[in-house]
């Protein structure tokens, strides 16, 4: 059973890391601020989400697992709002302001 859990962890965390890599490449290579934001949100949602899901079977207690999920949800919330704020600022003032 623990082998299955470990394989699940390795797969999910690797997939999450892949999203982090892709998001970072996007952040560096995409041409303008809005598309760069688009790349960043993938990292927040999917990258961190997959890593959280992968780490869940490794937790020693239910409380720890709940804490992990709460961290993911809070990062998602703040990421989504900050993205909206940055995008709104660009819309109002342009990419330089």
């Amino acid at each position, binding site marked *: 059973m623990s082998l299955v859990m470990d394989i699940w962890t390795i797969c999910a965390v690797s997939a999450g890391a892949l999203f982090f890599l892709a998001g970072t490449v996007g952040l560096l290579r995409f041409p303008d601020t809005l598309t760069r934001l688009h790349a960043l949100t993938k990292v927040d949602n999917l990258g961190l989400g997959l890593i959280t899901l992968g780490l869940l079977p490794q937790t020693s207690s239910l409380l720890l697992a709940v804490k992990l999920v709460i961290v993911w949800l809070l990062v998602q*919330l*703040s990421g989504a*709002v900050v993205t*909206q704020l940055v995008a709104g600022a660009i819309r109002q003032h342009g990419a330089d302001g």
Partner: protein
Amino acid sequence: MSIASVFDIALVALILAIGASTILVRTAFAAVVMFAVYGLLLSIAWVRLHAVDVALTEAAIGGGMTGLLLLGAVARSRSDDVDRVRVGYPVRLAAGGLCALVVAGLAIVVLHPPAAVPTLAPVVMENLPPSGLGNPVAGVLFVFRALDTLLEKVVVLLALLGVWSLAPDRAWGGTPGLQVYAKPDPPLIFLAQLLPPVGIVFGIYMCWVGAKDPGGAFQGGTVLAAMWLLVIVAGLQKAPAISRLWLRGLLIAGPMLFLAIGLAGWVFADAFLAYPEGYAKPLIVAVEATLTLSIAVALAMLAAGPPERAQQQ
């Protein structure tokens, strides 16, 4: 080489790189952003050193709070009514010279460590049980070095007085001019409605857990301050006028209670800031809870800045 040491080396390299770019970037805004990132990376380094209390404080104060204060300073220096003074070469030379002196001092300490590092850690662990606390850091802060902690809280109040004294005469006693957004921003309002309940519970939890595990008044207070600032910035609630009695009462409540218990120590436990036997933990928890509130209000008011508008009646 193990994975952990590869991670540590990469982390140190990253911290050095971010530190260098904090100095090298051209604009003040970019430097402040780099500084906040630097604080967050540094807190990861503290976690790697198993100093979780320091890590929490670094993330909350070093990365978050100081970053916010510096951002406020950048915004102020951008506005038009600031005198643009060019810094002359003698001043720059003096600043550079002093910095070099500090670096040289640090380098001497780091390159020539004493053969046996002096530590009081075993003594702390030996004498911790009578206080009823489980977190040695809380023990040092509130039992062994309580005077330092008391003075530290007073320093925060002095800093706030310094900020307030920058107010023009007509605005004295008025409301701080914290206004980031000209008109309400829907996503921000959404966040300011959703996050504070979670953040307040988390801030109280951090203070409460500080007696036993990493956490404490400063970390919890910073989270509470952040929640209040979020509500103010989103425009849901105005910053209070600094002449409000409840505001000033909350500001001094923590240090006053600490001082009162300290003075009572003379009567009941034969020394200033000593706790009577058996009552140490409840007293410390009471002091920490009140301090959390005072720190939260003080930090939020520090970030809100000096009063700019006269109080509306």
